């Protein structure tokens, strides 16, 4: 079943055209990775999917929901789309547990005690069952990002978006976050991941989309894209990545 359909999406900010006719589909349970140079429009693409950014033209569908239709209730849509941010964006005044219960209580209307129970379950799931009462400032970057993932998962989304989830982390902390993402992928979660983490892409991705200048230059499974890219631009970008090591 097609869960996400991106159809000829254009987007621009005042000064510049960012997305220039992006199209791709994801089946339920797919894990797709979006790669491309800085400024190519990867974050913008993700943000159009949960309407943090509005498209100029084109359509996005999430299951039966016409995401880009003006009458679509964004707050309802966003419960179906989890988002994980490069800078974590944890609520600084709340504990790890409260970061998760806030949305459950305020958006889903879950009763406080039940929200805490569910939040504990999600913290266990990301290996942080012992950090429920820690504040973000007391956690390492890797732990913060795992709380960020748990916070998004708690809303029971149909699709998870990850925007460079490991690129603000010290190299030794990347592994824990990638492991959690691999678990999620193995568990059947549909995930669209902006990342240059080759290990994750190789092990978990169904398809990789290479985005440059707001256009998908090339898409394909990791073996194909990494070993035999058809486009010179793809090859150039990937060889640069491999030479620099993981970002």
């Amino acid at each position, binding site marked *: 079943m097609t869960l996400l359909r991106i159809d000829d999406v254009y987007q621009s900010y005042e000064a510049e055209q960012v997305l220039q006719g992006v199209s791709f589909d994801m089946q339920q349970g797919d894990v797709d990775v979006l790669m491309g140079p800085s400024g190519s429009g990867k974050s913008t693409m993700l943000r159009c999917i949960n309407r943090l950014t509005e498209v100029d033209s084109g359509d996005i569908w999430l299951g039966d929901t016409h995401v880009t239709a003006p009458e679509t209730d964004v707050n309802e849509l*966003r419960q179906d789309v989890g*988002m994980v941010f490069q800078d974590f964006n*944890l609520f*600084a*005044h709340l504990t790890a547990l409260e970061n998760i219960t*806030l949305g459950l209580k*305020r*958006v889903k209307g879950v009763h406080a005690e039940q929200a805490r129970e569910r939040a504990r379950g999600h913290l266990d799931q990301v290996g942080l069952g012992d950090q429920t009462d820690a504040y973000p*400032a*007391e956690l390492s970057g890797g732990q913060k990002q795992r709380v960020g993932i748990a916070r998004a998962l708690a809303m029971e989304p149909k699709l998870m978006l990850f925007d460079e989830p490991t690129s603000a982390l010290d190299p030794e902390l990347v592994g824990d976050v990638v492991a959690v993402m691999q678990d999620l992928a193995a568990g059947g979660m549909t995930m669209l991941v902006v990342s240059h983490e080759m290990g994750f892409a190789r092990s978990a991705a169904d398809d990789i989309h290479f985005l440059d200048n707001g256009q998908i230059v090339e898409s394909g499974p990791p073996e194909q894209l990494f070993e035999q890219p058809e486009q010179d631009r793809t090859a150039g970008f990937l060889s640069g990545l491999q030479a620099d090591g993981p970002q």
Partner: protein
Amino acid sequence: MVQTGDWVFVLSNADTLLFGLVVTVVLTLTSLSVGFLLGFPAGAIEVYGDGVLRRVVTVAGGLLRGTPIVVILLVLFFVVSVSESAFITATVGLGLRSAAYQSQLFRGALQSVDEGQLEAARATGMGKLQAIRHVVVPQALRRSMPGFQNEFTIVLKDTSIAFAIGLAELLTQGYNLFTQSGRSTAVLEVFLVISAVYFVLTFLTNRGLDRVSDYYAIPAGENR
């Protein structure tokens, strides 16, 4: 010069000063409350609002901050006559002026909360107001505590300007004491006592507010 007889005079009129003290404390609290109730939304409008409302808030704030408080009080009492009660007039005047300053305090505090957190809240499906209320406001209030302590001190001392409209606050009561016939020798003693009272009030409230800040401080966070 300080004279024993004048100290005795001040002490024997302690009830007059005490009455002034009560008026001063109550006026400080009512003015700060008006200031908060108007100033907090005004600050929020300056950050999140748009259009006419924001214009109005910005212009009104600018006018209030640019006018000496004694002028505000005199105009409200003698020109506009908002109330026959000097106390109510003083509350309105000091309250409006404090609102104009508190709005700037809260504006800065709201802006200082990283926008990404608001976005993360919106991304989980919270409405804008909900996200502001549950994510931004609690952090902004913590960050505005030092500025609020400052504002508390300023309003406390500026209650003495209600002297200009004859309100029986601490300074006015003291003034009434030494202007009684034959008592002008007690000027120094009266002012010493009044100053000490303002100082003690300022000191105690600041310690109290420090405790509130500590209580609500985010563990290991940068906020205090």
